[in-house]
Protein backbone atom coordinates (compact mmCIF):
# COMPACT_ATOMS: atom_id res chain seq x y z
CA UNK A 1 0.00 0.00 0.00
CA UNK A 2 1.46 3.42 -0.90
CA UNK A 3 2.63 5.27 2.21
CA UNK A 4 0.28 8.27 1.78
CA UNK A 5 -2.76 5.97 1.66
CA UNK A 6 -1.54 4.24 4.80
CA UNK A 7 -1.26 7.65 6.51
CA UNK A 8 -4.75 8.64 5.30
CA UNK A 9 -6.45 5.47 6.52
CA UNK A 10 -4.62 5.32 9.84
CA UNK A 11 -5.19 8.98 10.73
CA UNK A 12 -8.87 8.87 9.71
CA UNK A 13 -9.40 5.69 11.73
CA UNK A 14 -7.69 7.13 14.82
CA UNK A 15 -9.70 10.36 14.58
CA UNK A 16 -12.91 8.33 14.33
CA UNK A 17 -11.85 6.37 17.40
CA UNK A 18 -11.02 9.59 19.28
CA UNK A 19 -14.33 11.28 18.41
CA UNK A 20 -16.68 8.32 18.84
CA UNK A 21 -15.12 7.56 22.24
CA UNK A 22 -16.23 11.11 23.12
CA UNK A 23 -19.84 10.63 22.08
CA UNK A 24 -19.74 11.84 18.48
CA UNK A 25 -23.23 11.74 16.94
CA UNK A 26 -22.15 11.61 13.33
CA UNK A 27 -19.05 11.88 11.20
CA UNK A 28 -18.35 12.34 7.50
CA UNK A 29 -15.07 12.05 5.68
CA UNK A 30 -14.50 13.80 2.37
CA UNK A 31 -11.34 12.72 0.55
CA UNK A 32 -9.91 14.27 -2.60
CA UNK A 33 -6.96 12.56 -4.19
CA UNK A 34 -4.73 13.95 -6.90
CA UNK A 35 -1.29 13.05 -8.20
CA UNK A 36 0.45 15.48 -5.84
CA UNK A 37 -1.60 15.23 -2.68
CA UNK A 38 -4.52 13.84 -0.77
CA UNK A 39 -6.72 16.35 1.03
CA UNK A 40 -9.16 15.23 3.69
CA UNK A 41 -12.03 17.00 5.43
CA UNK A 42 -13.63 15.39 8.46
CA UNK A 43 -16.86 16.88 9.82
CA UNK A 44 -18.44 15.70 13.03
CA UNK A 45 -21.11 16.68 15.51
CA UNK A 46 -19.52 16.00 18.85
CA UNK A 47 -19.50 17.57 22.29
CA UNK A 48 -15.92 18.32 23.24
CA UNK A 49 -14.62 19.98 26.38
CA UNK A 50 -11.94 22.64 26.15
CA UNK A 51 -9.50 20.03 27.41
CA UNK A 52 -10.51 17.63 24.61
CA UNK A 53 -9.96 20.31 21.96
CA UNK A 54 -6.62 21.22 23.50
CA UNK A 55 -5.63 17.55 23.53
CA UNK A 56 -6.68 17.07 19.92
CA UNK A 57 -4.73 20.15 18.83
CA UNK A 58 -1.73 18.98 20.81
CA UNK A 59 -1.74 15.64 19.02
CA UNK A 60 -2.43 16.96 15.52
CA UNK A 61 -0.27 20.10 15.49
CA UNK A 62 2.79 18.23 16.50
CA UNK A 63 6.46 18.95 15.81
CA UNK A 64 7.37 17.04 12.67
CA UNK A 65 9.70 14.10 13.11
CA UNK A 66 9.29 11.99 10.02
CA UNK A 67 12.09 9.58 10.94
CA UNK A 68 10.47 8.61 14.22
CA UNK A 69 7.07 8.28 12.63
CA UNK A 70 8.32 5.96 9.88
CA UNK A 71 9.88 3.63 12.42
CA UNK A 72 6.85 3.37 14.68
CA UNK A 73 4.08 3.68 12.08
CA UNK A 74 3.30 -0.09 12.12
CA UNK A 75 2.18 0.40 15.73
CA UNK A 76 -0.42 3.06 14.97
CA UNK A 77 -3.86 1.58 15.29
CA UNK A 78 -2.69 -1.42 17.32
CA UNK A 79 -5.10 -1.12 20.28
CA UNK A 80 -5.21 2.60 19.45
CA UNK A 81 -4.15 4.91 22.24
CA UNK A 82 -4.49 8.68 21.75
CA UNK A 83 -0.72 9.03 21.32
CA UNK A 84 -1.10 7.25 17.95
CA UNK A 85 -2.64 10.47 16.62
CA UNK A 86 0.59 12.29 17.40
CA UNK A 87 2.65 9.66 15.64
CA UNK A 88 0.66 9.76 12.39
CA UNK A 89 0.35 13.55 12.46
CA UNK A 90 4.13 13.77 12.15
CA UNK A 91 3.70 12.60 8.55
CA UNK A 92 0.92 15.03 7.64
CA UNK A 93 1.82 18.19 5.77
CA UNK A 94 -0.81 20.60 7.10
CA UNK A 95 -3.67 20.45 9.57
CA UNK A 96 -6.62 22.77 10.26
CA UNK A 97 -8.93 22.36 13.22
CA UNK A 98 -12.10 24.39 13.83
CA UNK A 99 -14.51 23.71 16.67
CA UNK A 100 -17.78 25.58 17.16
CA UNK A 101 -18.71 24.91 20.77
CA UNK A 102 -22.28 26.25 20.45
CA UNK A 103 -23.15 24.01 17.50
CA UNK A 104 -20.91 21.16 18.72
CA UNK A 105 -19.50 21.15 15.21
CA UNK A 106 -15.95 20.02 14.49
CA UNK A 107 -14.08 20.36 11.19
CA UNK A 108 -10.65 18.87 10.69
CA UNK A 109 -8.83 19.27 7.40
CA UNK A 110 -5.45 17.78 6.60
CA UNK A 111 -3.24 17.38 3.56
CA UNK A 112 -0.81 14.59 2.75
CA UNK A 113 1.59 15.39 -0.06
CA UNK A 114 3.36 12.83 -2.20
CA UNK A 115 6.94 12.15 -1.08
Amino acid sequence: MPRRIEILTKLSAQLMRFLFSRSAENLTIDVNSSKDQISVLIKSTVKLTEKDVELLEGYLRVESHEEMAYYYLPLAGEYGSDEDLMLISMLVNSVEINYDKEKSSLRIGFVIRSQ
Partner: protein
Amino acid sequence: MERKFLRRVFLYSVGFFFILFGLLTGGLWHPVQLWRNLVEIVTVPDYLLTDYIEIGGISGAFVNSGLLMVIFTFLLQLLKLPVTGLSFACVLTVGGFALFGKNIFNVWPILLGVFLYSRYRGEPFSRYIYVSYFGTAIAPLVTQLAFFLPVSGLKQVILSYVVAVVIGFFLTDLAAHFLTAHKGYNLYNVGFTCGMIGMIAAAFMRTYGYEIPSRKVWSSGNNLLLSVFMFLIFFLLTYYGWKLNGRSFKGYKKLMKHSGRLVSDFIILEGFPITLINMGVMGFVMTLYVIVTGNQLNGPTIGGIMTVVGFAAFGKHPKNVLPILIGVTISAVTNKYALNEPNNILAALFGTTLAPIAGEFGPIWGVIAGFVHTAVVNNVGFLHGGLNLYNNGFAGGLVAMFLVPLIRVLSKEGK
Protein backbone atom coordinates in the same frame (compact mmCIF):
# COMPACT_ATOMS: atom_id res chain seq x y z
CA MET B 1 15.11 27.67 17.74
CA GLU B 2 16.93 28.43 20.97
CA ARG B 3 15.21 25.54 22.73
CA LYS B 4 16.15 23.16 19.90
CA PHE B 5 19.77 24.24 20.22
CA LEU B 6 19.59 23.72 23.98
CA ARG B 7 18.31 20.16 23.51
CA ARG B 8 21.33 19.35 21.37
CA VAL B 9 23.68 20.93 23.89
CA PHE B 10 22.23 18.76 26.65
CA LEU B 11 22.48 15.61 24.52
CA TYR B 12 26.13 16.33 23.78
CA SER B 13 26.87 17.29 27.36
CA VAL B 14 26.02 13.83 28.77
CA GLY B 15 28.67 12.27 26.52
CA PHE B 16 31.22 14.97 27.31
CA PHE B 17 30.56 14.57 31.05
CA PHE B 18 31.33 10.86 30.75
CA ILE B 19 34.57 11.54 28.88
CA LEU B 20 35.59 14.20 31.41
CA PHE B 21 34.85 11.83 34.29
CA GLY B 22 36.88 9.11 32.56
CA LEU B 23 39.81 11.48 32.11
CA LEU B 24 39.69 12.83 35.67
CA THR B 25 39.61 9.33 37.16
CA GLY B 26 42.95 8.40 35.63
CA GLY B 27 43.04 8.81 31.87
CA LEU B 28 44.39 12.33 32.00
CA TRP B 29 47.35 11.41 34.20
CA HIS B 30 48.06 8.05 32.56
CA PRO B 31 47.18 8.37 28.86
CA VAL B 32 49.19 5.30 27.82
CA GLN B 33 47.33 3.18 30.37
CA LEU B 34 44.02 4.63 29.14
CA TRP B 35 44.91 3.59 25.59
CA ARG B 36 45.78 0.08 26.80
CA ASN B 37 42.48 -0.09 28.68
CA LEU B 38 40.54 0.93 25.58
CA VAL B 39 42.36 -1.72 23.52
CA GLU B 40 41.51 -4.27 26.23
CA ILE B 41 37.83 -3.25 26.10
CA VAL B 42 37.76 -3.62 22.33
CA THR B 43 39.49 -7.01 22.21
CA VAL B 44 37.72 -8.98 24.97
CA PRO B 45 34.61 -11.04 24.12
CA ASP B 46 31.75 -8.78 25.13
CA TYR B 47 28.66 -10.93 25.40
CA LEU B 48 26.62 -10.78 28.63
CA LEU B 49 27.85 -10.07 31.26
CA THR B 50 31.08 -8.18 30.62
CA ASP B 51 31.55 -5.19 32.88
CA TYR B 52 33.96 -2.81 31.14
CA ILE B 53 34.79 -1.15 34.49
CA GLU B 54 36.37 -4.44 35.54
CA ILE B 55 38.07 -4.87 32.13
CA GLY B 56 39.31 -1.35 31.43
CA GLY B 57 38.86 0.47 34.72
CA ILE B 58 36.50 3.38 35.41
CA SER B 59 38.57 5.60 33.17
CA GLY B 60 38.53 3.31 30.11
CA ALA B 61 34.86 2.38 30.49
CA PHE B 62 33.63 5.97 30.79
CA VAL B 63 35.81 7.29 27.96
CA ASN B 64 34.52 4.47 25.71
CA SER B 65 30.92 5.27 26.68
CA GLY B 66 31.32 9.04 26.36
CA LEU B 67 33.02 8.75 22.98
CA LEU B 68 30.19 6.62 21.59
CA MET B 69 27.56 9.05 22.90
CA VAL B 70 29.32 12.05 21.38
CA ILE B 71 29.86 10.30 18.02
CA PHE B 72 26.25 9.09 17.86
CA THR B 73 24.94 12.57 18.77
CA PHE B 74 27.16 14.05 16.06
CA LEU B 75 25.74 11.58 13.51
CA LEU B 76 22.20 12.71 14.39
CA GLN B 77 23.31 16.31 13.87
CA LEU B 78 25.00 15.42 10.60
CA LEU B 79 21.73 13.93 9.35
CA LYS B 80 19.93 17.12 10.45
CA LEU B 81 17.61 15.26 12.80
CA PRO B 82 15.80 17.16 15.54
CA VAL B 83 16.64 16.24 19.11
CA THR B 84 13.54 14.65 20.64
CA GLY B 85 12.80 12.16 23.39
CA LEU B 86 13.72 9.33 21.03
CA SER B 87 17.18 10.88 20.47
CA PHE B 88 17.82 10.96 24.23
CA ALA B 89 16.51 7.39 24.58
CA CYS B 90 18.76 5.93 21.90
CA VAL B 91 21.94 7.91 22.63
CA LEU B 92 21.78 7.31 26.40
CA THR B 93 20.96 3.63 25.82
CA VAL B 94 24.01 3.28 23.58
CA GLY B 95 26.09 5.12 26.20
CA GLY B 96 24.78 2.95 29.02
CA PHE B 97 25.51 -0.28 27.16
CA ALA B 98 28.94 1.04 26.22
CA LEU B 99 29.80 0.33 29.85
CA PHE B 100 29.20 -3.38 29.32
CA GLY B 101 29.24 -4.63 25.74
CA LYS B 102 29.23 -1.92 23.11
CA ASN B 103 32.49 -0.36 22.10
CA ILE B 104 34.10 1.83 19.50
CA PHE B 105 34.93 -1.27 17.41
CA ASN B 106 31.86 -3.50 17.39
CA VAL B 107 28.95 -1.11 16.70
CA TRP B 108 29.81 -0.06 13.14
CA PRO B 109 28.84 -3.11 11.05
CA ILE B 110 25.24 -2.87 12.29
CA LEU B 111 25.10 0.80 11.28
CA LEU B 112 26.67 -0.09 7.94
CA GLY B 113 24.10 -2.84 7.35
CA VAL B 114 21.21 -0.46 8.04
CA PHE B 115 22.85 2.16 5.82
CA LEU B 116 23.07 -0.34 2.93
CA TYR B 117 19.42 -1.22 3.51
CA SER B 118 18.45 2.45 3.17
CA ARG B 119 20.42 2.61 -0.12
CA TYR B 120 18.67 -0.54 -1.29
CA ARG B 121 15.28 1.03 -0.51
CA GLY B 122 16.37 4.31 -2.11
CA GLU B 123 15.44 6.18 1.07
CA PRO B 124 17.50 8.47 3.32
CA PHE B 125 19.57 6.79 6.02
CA SER B 126 18.06 9.20 8.56
CA ARG B 127 14.78 7.29 8.26
CA TYR B 128 16.40 4.20 9.76
CA ILE B 129 19.07 5.69 12.02
CA TYR B 130 17.22 4.94 15.27
CA VAL B 131 16.86 1.25 14.47
CA SER B 132 20.57 1.12 13.74
CA TYR B 133 21.42 2.77 17.08
CA PHE B 134 19.26 0.42 19.11
CA GLY B 135 20.37 -2.46 16.88
CA THR B 136 23.92 -2.20 18.21
CA ALA B 137 22.55 -4.44 20.98
CA ILE B 138 23.61 -7.34 18.80
CA ALA B 139 27.22 -6.03 18.73
CA PRO B 140 28.62 -8.95 20.80
CA LEU B 141 27.72 -11.22 17.91
CA VAL B 142 30.46 -9.50 15.89
CA THR B 143 33.21 -10.51 18.29
CA GLN B 144 31.65 -13.89 19.07
CA LEU B 145 31.43 -14.77 15.38
CA ALA B 146 35.12 -14.02 15.06
CA PHE B 147 35.77 -16.90 17.49
CA PHE B 148 33.23 -19.21 15.81
CA LEU B 149 34.13 -18.84 12.14
CA PRO B 150 36.60 -21.40 10.72
CA VAL B 151 39.12 -18.75 9.62
CA SER B 152 41.75 -16.73 11.44
CA GLY B 153 43.54 -13.37 11.44
CA LEU B 154 42.24 -10.52 9.31
CA LYS B 155 39.89 -12.86 7.43
CA GLN B 156 38.21 -13.64 10.76
CA VAL B 157 37.60 -9.97 11.49
CA ILE B 158 36.36 -9.19 7.98
CA LEU B 159 34.03 -12.20 7.83
CA SER B 160 32.49 -11.50 11.23
CA TYR B 161 31.94 -7.90 10.12
CA VAL B 162 30.27 -9.10 6.90
CA VAL B 163 27.83 -11.32 8.82
CA ALA B 164 26.99 -8.43 11.16
CA VAL B 165 26.41 -6.13 8.16
CA VAL B 166 23.95 -8.70 6.76
CA ILE B 167 22.13 -8.77 10.11
CA GLY B 168 22.02 -4.97 10.13
CA PHE B 169 20.57 -5.05 6.63
CA PHE B 170 17.55 -7.11 7.69
CA LEU B 171 17.17 -5.54 11.13
CA THR B 172 14.82 -2.72 10.09
CA ASP B 173 12.08 -4.89 8.66
CA LEU B 174 12.36 -7.38 11.50
CA ALA B 175 12.11 -4.58 14.10
CA ALA B 176 9.06 -3.10 12.37
CA HIS B 177 7.39 -6.51 12.29
CA PHE B 178 8.08 -7.34 15.94
CA LEU B 179 6.68 -3.98 17.06
CA THR B 180 3.21 -5.31 16.39
CA ALA B 181 3.88 -8.54 18.31
CA HIS B 182 4.00 -6.81 21.70
CA LYS B 183 1.83 -3.88 20.57
CA GLY B 184 4.26 -1.26 21.90
CA TYR B 185 4.04 -2.37 25.55
CA ASN B 186 7.73 -3.30 25.54
CA LEU B 187 9.77 -0.12 25.23
CA TYR B 188 12.98 -1.91 24.21
CA ASN B 189 11.55 -3.20 20.94
CA VAL B 190 14.86 -3.66 19.14
CA GLY B 191 16.00 -5.68 22.16
CA PHE B 192 13.19 -8.10 21.42
CA THR B 193 14.19 -8.21 17.75
CA CYS B 194 17.87 -8.72 18.57
CA GLY B 195 16.90 -11.45 21.01
CA MET B 196 15.24 -13.31 18.15
CA ILE B 197 18.31 -12.82 15.94
CA GLY B 198 20.66 -13.85 18.75
CA MET B 199 18.54 -16.91 19.44
CA ILE B 200 18.81 -18.07 15.80
CA ALA B 201 22.56 -17.31 15.70
CA ALA B 202 23.20 -19.15 18.99
CA ALA B 203 21.16 -22.12 17.75
CA PHE B 204 23.37 -22.39 14.64
CA MET B 205 26.55 -22.08 16.67
CA ARG B 206 25.47 -24.83 19.06
CA THR B 207 24.22 -27.06 16.24
CA TYR B 208 27.69 -26.88 14.67
CA GLY B 209 29.42 -27.71 17.92
CA TYR B 210 30.40 -24.30 19.25
CA GLU B 211 29.42 -23.81 22.86
CA ILE B 212 29.06 -20.20 23.95
CA PRO B 213 30.64 -20.17 27.40
CA SER B 214 28.78 -18.41 30.20
CA ARG B 215 30.39 -15.28 31.52
CA LYS B 216 30.02 -12.95 34.48
CA VAL B 217 32.52 -10.12 34.77
CA TRP B 218 31.12 -7.89 37.51
CA SER B 219 33.03 -5.09 39.27
CA SER B 220 32.42 -3.90 42.81
CA GLY B 221 33.68 -1.44 45.40
CA ASN B 222 33.18 1.83 43.48
CA ASN B 223 29.84 2.91 44.93
CA LEU B 224 31.02 6.12 46.60
CA LEU B 225 32.81 7.61 43.59
CA LEU B 226 30.23 6.48 41.04
CA SER B 227 27.23 7.55 43.11
CA VAL B 228 28.68 11.06 43.54
CA PHE B 229 29.12 11.29 39.76
CA MET B 230 25.66 9.92 38.96
CA PHE B 231 23.91 12.11 41.53
CA LEU B 232 25.73 15.16 40.18
CA ILE B 233 24.47 14.46 36.64
CA PHE B 234 20.90 13.91 37.82
CA PHE B 235 21.01 17.00 40.01
CA LEU B 236 22.12 19.07 37.00
CA LEU B 237 19.37 17.61 34.79
CA THR B 238 16.70 18.32 37.41
CA TYR B 239 18.06 21.77 38.23
CA TYR B 240 18.25 22.96 34.61
CA GLY B 241 14.83 21.46 33.88
CA TRP B 242 13.39 23.29 36.86
CA LYS B 243 15.12 26.53 35.83
CA LEU B 244 13.98 26.31 32.18
CA ASN B 245 10.47 25.49 33.43
CA GLY B 246 10.18 28.91 35.09
CA ARG B 247 11.66 27.60 38.37
CA SER B 248 8.76 25.24 38.92
CA PHE B 249 7.65 21.64 38.52
CA LYS B 250 4.50 22.72 36.69
CA GLY B 251 3.34 20.15 34.17
CA TYR B 252 4.92 17.13 35.85
CA LYS B 253 1.54 15.73 36.90
CA LYS B 254 0.36 16.05 33.29
CA LEU B 255 3.42 14.22 31.98
CA MET B 256 2.68 11.33 34.33
CA LYS B 257 -0.78 10.95 32.81
CA HIS B 258 0.75 9.39 29.70
CA SER B 259 0.73 5.62 29.71
CA GLY B 260 4.22 5.56 28.25
CA ARG B 261 3.21 3.11 25.56
CA LEU B 262 5.14 3.52 22.33
CA VAL B 263 5.15 6.25 21.10
CA SER B 264 5.15 8.74 24.02
CA ASP B 265 7.81 11.29 23.21
CA PHE B 266 7.70 13.58 26.25
CA ILE B 267 9.82 16.31 24.64
CA ILE B 268 7.30 16.62 21.81
CA LEU B 269 4.22 16.11 23.98
CA GLU B 270 5.12 18.04 27.13
CA GLY B 271 8.18 20.11 26.31
CA PHE B 272 11.88 19.92 27.03
CA PRO B 273 12.13 21.45 30.55
CA ILE B 274 9.66 19.10 32.23
CA THR B 275 11.24 16.15 30.41
CA LEU B 276 14.65 17.11 31.83
CA ILE B 277 13.11 17.13 35.31
CA ASN B 278 11.64 13.67 34.71
CA MET B 279 15.02 12.38 33.52
CA GLY B 280 16.75 13.73 36.62
CA VAL B 281 14.10 12.36 38.98
CA MET B 282 14.19 8.91 37.36
CA GLY B 283 17.98 8.91 37.61
CA PHE B 284 17.80 9.64 41.35
CA VAL B 285 15.13 6.98 41.92
CA MET B 286 17.01 4.23 40.09
CA THR B 287 20.43 5.05 41.59
CA LEU B 288 18.90 5.09 45.07
CA TYR B 289 17.24 1.73 44.37
CA VAL B 290 20.62 0.21 43.47
CA ILE B 291 22.26 1.56 46.62
CA VAL B 292 19.39 0.83 49.04
CA THR B 293 19.11 -2.79 47.89
CA GLY B 294 22.80 -3.28 48.64
CA ASN B 295 23.88 -3.57 45.02
CA GLN B 296 26.96 -2.38 43.21
CA LEU B 297 27.19 0.62 40.95
CA ASN B 298 29.18 -0.72 38.00
CA GLY B 299 29.01 -1.00 34.21
CA PRO B 300 25.80 -3.04 33.92
CA THR B 301 23.89 -1.23 36.68
CA ILE B 302 24.89 2.25 35.51
CA GLY B 303 24.00 1.05 32.00
CA GLY B 304 20.55 0.18 33.35
CA ILE B 305 20.19 3.53 35.08
CA MET B 306 21.27 5.45 31.95
CA THR B 307 18.76 3.50 29.86
CA VAL B 308 15.95 4.41 32.26
CA VAL B 309 17.07 8.06 32.21
CA GLY B 310 17.10 8.05 28.39
CA PHE B 311 13.66 6.50 28.25
CA ALA B 312 12.43 9.04 30.80
CA ALA B 313 12.23 11.25 27.72
CA PHE B 314 10.34 8.55 25.84
CA GLY B 315 7.74 6.86 28.00
CA LYS B 316 9.00 6.25 31.53
CA HIS B 317 8.01 8.24 34.61
CA PRO B 318 7.71 7.41 38.32
CA LYS B 319 4.04 6.48 38.08
CA ASN B 320 4.55 3.71 35.52
CA VAL B 321 8.03 2.59 36.66
CA LEU B 322 7.48 2.18 40.42
CA PRO B 323 4.90 -0.64 40.11
CA ILE B 324 7.35 -2.61 37.96
CA LEU B 325 10.10 -2.05 40.54
CA ILE B 326 7.76 -3.27 43.30
CA GLY B 327 6.90 -6.40 41.29
CA VAL B 328 10.56 -7.19 40.64
CA THR B 329 11.42 -6.56 44.29
CA ILE B 330 8.67 -8.92 45.51
CA SER B 331 10.06 -11.57 43.19
CA ALA B 332 13.64 -10.79 44.27
CA VAL B 333 12.96 -11.33 47.97
CA THR B 334 11.09 -14.58 47.33
CA ASN B 335 13.08 -16.22 44.50
CA LYS B 336 16.27 -18.26 44.84
CA TYR B 337 18.59 -15.32 43.99
CA ALA B 338 19.65 -12.78 46.60
CA LEU B 339 18.27 -9.25 46.29
CA ASN B 340 21.75 -7.92 45.54
CA GLU B 341 22.66 -10.48 42.88
CA PRO B 342 23.06 -9.32 39.27
CA ASN B 343 20.00 -11.29 38.13
CA ASN B 344 17.64 -9.35 40.35
CA ILE B 345 19.09 -5.86 40.10
CA LEU B 346 19.32 -6.05 36.30
CA ALA B 347 15.73 -7.32 36.13
CA ALA B 348 14.69 -4.31 38.24
CA LEU B 349 16.53 -1.71 36.18
CA PHE B 350 15.83 -3.07 32.71
CA GLY B 351 12.45 -4.63 33.56
CA THR B 352 11.09 -1.09 33.46
CA THR B 353 10.81 -1.75 29.73
CA LEU B 354 7.30 -2.91 30.73
CA ALA B 355 6.36 0.46 32.27
CA PRO B 356 3.59 1.02 29.65
CA ILE B 357 1.66 -1.92 31.12
CA ALA B 358 1.50 -0.14 34.50
CA GLY B 359 0.78 3.15 32.74
CA GLU B 360 -2.15 1.86 30.73
CA PHE B 361 -3.69 -0.88 32.86
CA GLY B 362 -2.86 0.39 36.35
CA PRO B 363 -0.31 -0.25 39.09
CA ILE B 364 -1.55 -3.74 40.07
CA TRP B 365 -0.90 -5.04 36.56
CA GLY B 366 2.43 -3.26 36.65
CA VAL B 367 3.41 -5.14 39.80
CA ILE B 368 2.34 -8.43 38.20
CA ALA B 369 4.30 -7.59 35.04
CA GLY B 370 7.44 -6.91 37.10
CA PHE B 371 6.97 -10.16 39.02
CA VAL B 372 6.50 -12.25 35.87
CA HIS B 373 9.35 -10.47 34.10
CA THR B 374 11.89 -11.44 36.77
CA ALA B 375 11.16 -15.12 36.26
CA VAL B 376 11.20 -14.90 32.47
CA VAL B 377 14.37 -12.81 32.14
CA ASN B 378 16.34 -15.31 34.23
CA ASN B 379 15.53 -18.04 31.74
CA VAL B 380 15.81 -16.52 28.28
CA GLY B 381 19.50 -15.54 28.38
CA PHE B 382 20.47 -19.09 27.46
CA LEU B 383 18.44 -18.91 24.24
CA HIS B 384 20.67 -16.24 22.70
CA GLY B 385 23.77 -17.12 24.72
CA GLY B 386 24.22 -13.51 25.81
CA LEU B 387 24.68 -12.38 22.20
CA ASN B 388 21.85 -9.88 22.62
CA LEU B 389 22.79 -7.20 25.11
CA TYR B 390 19.15 -6.18 25.62
CA ASN B 391 18.23 -9.43 27.32
CA ASN B 392 15.48 -7.66 29.26
CA GLY B 393 14.09 -6.20 26.04
CA PHE B 394 13.79 -9.73 24.71
CA ALA B 395 12.17 -11.02 27.92
CA GLY B 396 9.98 -7.90 28.15
CA GLY B 397 8.63 -8.56 24.66
CA LEU B 398 7.70 -12.12 25.62
CA VAL B 399 6.06 -10.98 28.87
CA ALA B 400 4.07 -8.26 27.07
CA MET B 401 2.94 -10.75 24.40
CA PHE B 402 1.78 -13.11 27.13
CA LEU B 403 0.27 -10.65 29.62
CA VAL B 404 -1.39 -7.96 27.50
CA PRO B 405 -4.04 -10.25 25.94
CA LEU B 406 -4.84 -11.68 29.38
CA ILE B 407 -5.11 -8.21 30.92
CA ARG B 408 -7.40 -7.09 28.12
CA VAL B 409 -9.69 -10.07 28.65
CA LEU B 410 -9.94 -9.30 32.35
CA SER B 411 -10.17 -5.53 32.04
CA LYS B 412 -13.29 -3.50 31.23
CA GLU B 413 -12.09 -2.87 27.70
CA GLY B 414 -12.09 -6.57 26.84
CA LYS B 415 -15.66 -7.15 27.99
